[in-house]
């Protein structure tokens, strides 16, 4: 159970960073915009043709979530299942 809890908490830290860290970064970067709309170097930067702030939320986060799910399944297969097999 400890291995399960450790995997879940590790993945949830990344989930938290993705879900709230990125919007917070966009918010902090945009504080200097006098119009209050949040324009910043993140909104001016381009990635794959997208404004970076748009891509990060529209695709970056969701791709990140899928990778986190994959990571969770991989960690489970590598750490939890072998631990169960080695039980006395």
């Amino acid at each position, binding site marked *: 159970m400890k291995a399960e809890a450790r995997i879940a908490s590790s993945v949830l830290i990344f989930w938290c960073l993705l879900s709230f860290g990125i919007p917070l970064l*966009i918010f902090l970067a945009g504080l200097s915009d006098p119009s209050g*709309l*949040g324009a910043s170097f993140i*909104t001016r930067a381009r990635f794959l*043709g997208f404004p970076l702030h748009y891509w990060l939320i*529209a695709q970056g986060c969701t791709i990140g*979530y*899928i990778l986190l799910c994959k990571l969770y399944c991989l960690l489970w297969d590598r750490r939890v299942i072998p631990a*169960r097999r080695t039980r006395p």
Partner: protein
Amino acid sequence: MTKTGWMTCTGVALIVLFSSCGYLFAAAGEEIYQVEPGFKLVPAIIMVTLLCVYIGVGILSRVTETSGYWVAGRGIGKFGNGAAIASDWMSAASFMGVAGLLYLKGWFGLGYIIGWTGGYVLLLCLIATQIRRFGKYTIPEFLGDRYDCHTVRLIAAAVTVIISITYSTAQFKGIGLICGWIFGMNYNASVFFAAGVVCAYMLISGMAGVTRNQQIQYVVLISAFIIPLWILIKKAGGAGILPQLEYGALLSDLLEGKVASGTLGAAEIEKVRQIYLPWGAGSFYQFVALVFTLMVGTAGLPHIMIRFYTVKSEEVARKSVLWGLFFIGLLYWSSPVYAVLGKFWNPLGGQQVADVIILSAPERAGMGIAYIGYLAAGAMAAGLSTVAGLLIAGASAIAHDWYATVFNPAATDRQQLFVGRIFTAALCAVVVVTALNPPALIAQIVAMAFSIAGNTIFPVVVLGIWYSGSNKYGALAGMIWGLGMTLIAMAGWIAGIPAFGANGLLPATSSALLVCPMAFVLNILVSNLMADRISEESADRSDNILRKLHNLPGQVDEAPSGEKLPGTHMSEGFKP
């Protein structure tokens, strides 16, 4: 019928359908398409064919046991359950509403996408495996057994029913639009028609038929949604290879005022910039509150959680979340493409443009009347699959958790199955009555369902799994707080009180950021304060459930139907 037989039948049906689509598409020509309501023969044939497939699948999947009716005999694989999760999830609102929302709200609307997808990570890490290990039929059953308390069970059952009714009601706006568009039916007739179709296959086959239909419905809805994008992006000047990446350049051009009709004036560019810059359509607090509510709401929706009871093992439960999220991602990576293309062609359109942004796509792409029918069938599939999943969850909460567990525990399997069908039909009737007088807009109703699930179900399920000290008193305090505050916020929103409106401190549709953590705190505090009131027998029963959930040694329950490995690695006690 064998699995191979199933796949063959489904495959043949779809091939026949796609072939007829291609033929009709060629025959229909471009000048016939239209979006006004009224009977349209070719789309109607496509729609009726698919509805017959759903009912046929229901008949072929008919069940004679309660485990077949409620959890599909626990025989679903990871791809199948992933597709069913996605189909259960992707409602008429997701299919038709999200692109319109993104068209109107721009960047801020993306909060719906990360909220609705990020919740699956919570579901996977905190709930899916353990729920499968519990291995029974419903979420109220899990809560009732874990907290050894019928009141907790019945509150959870009531919340499940409330969510089923509100969320199902929301589907009928989209379904009504589609039926009016294809068959020329009015809204009321559409509600009866769609409810009749869902009931027809659900009553015969229960979860077994619902799941198989959801797999077919996923293929229909995702293909109908994505295919027009290739043509549309090419028309907008893209290469037509991967629309989900190509629209980025269009969006960047849009922010500089370049649209299909030329270049926008300074005032118009400012309007477009406003919705695509982060805080033009809402504040940081509103964004985070929305995202958090949708995430915990997603992870707390009973009709999604019960999908984990239907799978073969806990490993399949985990992997089906991964596949479900990928299948959902396909739709949510595509919705913003429609929104940005909509802006490209109509940069300053309002609600009217947003409402038909998906339905008018085949017309703009010049795909002909047959494809319009197929797209409508996709939207219908999205609505029907969600309604079916919700009704099964709601009916199981009444029939299994109230009738078979509290009211008549001695009921035979045959009686339980009969009562299950009666309550499924009864719940369907209630949904029809509610849908005939829907209380608000699709997205708002659905978002209220997320607040209820996130504030009431999510905290009690997570603490029930991960905190051994949580007991029935804490559970009741947390659930009553969560449900009460959600209902107060809803009432305040309807009454027009600013604090509960979109710009308030506790927006009704995004209330979980404040209410949900408080529900956790209350549950823990009250559990600790009341710990000495829990009898030893009750504590032992809860302890036994926890051992089952975490595969700990010493459980003395009946054998779970999922993966169970005897273990002895934990030496410490696990008493609440």
